[in-house]
């Protein structure tokens, strides 16, 4: 399968391209050298359109758009921004556009963006102009829902649009929890029951959790998976309680990590990259021996997949947007590391090989057709 992997890094945008399923990967770029690229996403409704969340270390955050599959880019005319605060209000400003999600297939041109500090934004014109979603950004509970951000701020991410219902939305805030709307974002409610928050004085709170990544299967939209700061979870709607499925991981590995990705055609199959969450939270490969773990039964069991990965002294981290699959029947699985390597796992991750190295710290890896 021909395809492109868009690699967003701390220092610019790169592309890995190949022709055919067995072709060699060719690295192109950088584009936007020196810009911080948090996310690059292709529009499944119009594959020519790509959106990219970017900023530099000193300039403000913005969104770039490409309507020719990444050959050329143009900045959004009105990037995501909070409304101007009234006197006495908390005067928030977007520090990072962190996450991009295309809207429902019935709503051509719609997109959502998540920011740090936690904000939700909507575009109705393919990302050219953005408006704050008042239903969350001005929600009276928002200051409490997103009260525990780190010094880097809270990150709003994992924006999910139910493929059956354009008005049914989810997102996650790290730190804040998972939230759901059934009315196109006009109102929101926490969805964190059953999920642990063992870093809080009261671990059984309705919000304040730390979801690292939440995904919804396109063919079984009632199935949600969550890689959380406190383990791997699953929820089958209409249930409202998360079930911890990471307890079936090997004890010496645990179930802490950032990304979780799903098989495009099988809701039972998912991949995670465990990291070290012991003591001071190094967040590196466990023991310097990186491995991907795959479940094929919805989390009842997990299998280590490390054939081809370094056997020792490899201390990288895989961030939440830095893992993806392609759309083959036995999909390729891809991840980028904080050490600037991109790894490709053929046949659903059975065998890994490094397809790029020496890149800047990788923030996102996404597949485009």
């Amino acid at each position: 399968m021909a395809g492109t992997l868009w690699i967003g890094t701390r220092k610019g945008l790169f592309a890995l391209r190949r022709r055919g399923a067995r072709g060699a990967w060719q690295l192109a770029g950088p584009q936007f050298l020196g810009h911080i690229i948090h996310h690059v996403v292709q529009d499944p409704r119009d594959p020519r359109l790509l959106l990219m969340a970017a900023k530099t270390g000193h300039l403000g955050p913005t969104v770039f758009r490409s309507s020719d599959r990444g050959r050329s880019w143009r900045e959004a005319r009105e990037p995501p921004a909070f409304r101007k605060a009234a006197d006495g209000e908390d005067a928030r400003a977007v520090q990072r556009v962190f996450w991009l999600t295309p809207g429902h297939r019935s709503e051509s041109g719609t997109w959502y963006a998540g920011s740090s500090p936690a904000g939700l934004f909507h575009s109705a014109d393919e990302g050219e102009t953005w408006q704050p979603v008042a239903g969350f950004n001005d929600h009276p509970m928002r200051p409490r829902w997103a009260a525990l951000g780190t010094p880097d701020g809270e990150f709003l991410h994992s924006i999910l649009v139910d493929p059956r219902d354009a008005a049914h939305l989810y997102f996650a805030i790290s730190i804040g929890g998972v939230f759901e709307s059934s009315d196109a974002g006009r109102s929101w409610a926490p969805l964190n029951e059953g999920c642990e928050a063992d870093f809080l004085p009261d671990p059984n709170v309705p919000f304040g959790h730390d979801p690292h990544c939440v995904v919804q299967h396109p063919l079984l939209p009632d199935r949600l998976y969550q890689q959380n700061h406190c383990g791997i979870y699953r929820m089958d709607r209409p249930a409202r309680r998360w079930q911890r499925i990471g307890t079936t991981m090997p004890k010496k590995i645990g179930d802490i990590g950032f990304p979780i990705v799903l098989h495009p055609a099988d809701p039972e199959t998912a991949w995670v990259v465990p990291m070290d969450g012991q003591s001071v939270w190094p967040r590196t490969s466990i023991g310097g021996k990186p491995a991907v773990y795959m479940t094929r039964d919805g989390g009842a069991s997990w299998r280590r997949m490390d054939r081809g990965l370094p056997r020792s002294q490899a201390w990288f981290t895989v961030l939440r947007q830095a893992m993806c699959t392609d759309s083959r029947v036995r999909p390729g699985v891809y991840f980028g590391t904080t050490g600037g390597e991109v790894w490709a796992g053929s046949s659903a991750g059975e065998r890994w090989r490094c397809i790029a190295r020496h890149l800047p710290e990788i923030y996102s890896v996404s597949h485009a057709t």
Partner: protein
Amino acid sequence: MSCQVRIASPLRSYTAGAATLPARGHTLAAVLAHLEQRCPGIRFRVIDEQDRIRPHMRLFVNASEARELTVPVCEGDTVHIICALSGG
């Protein structure tokens, strides 16, 4: 009031590469608004949506640093937009 605006290199993608541009306005806010008309998008990379100067940006009128957009600009002044880089 007419002034000159010196543009830091990270912002020159908005100015077609120009390092200095003429602008008009009695205050920094007015000068930046005039600059935005000529170079759409440049203001938001420097000033946030609450009209605050972004943390890694610095504005000077002649040799004096300006912390507020209400600072006056006089005929013949030079406004400097400077990037304050940190880290690697």
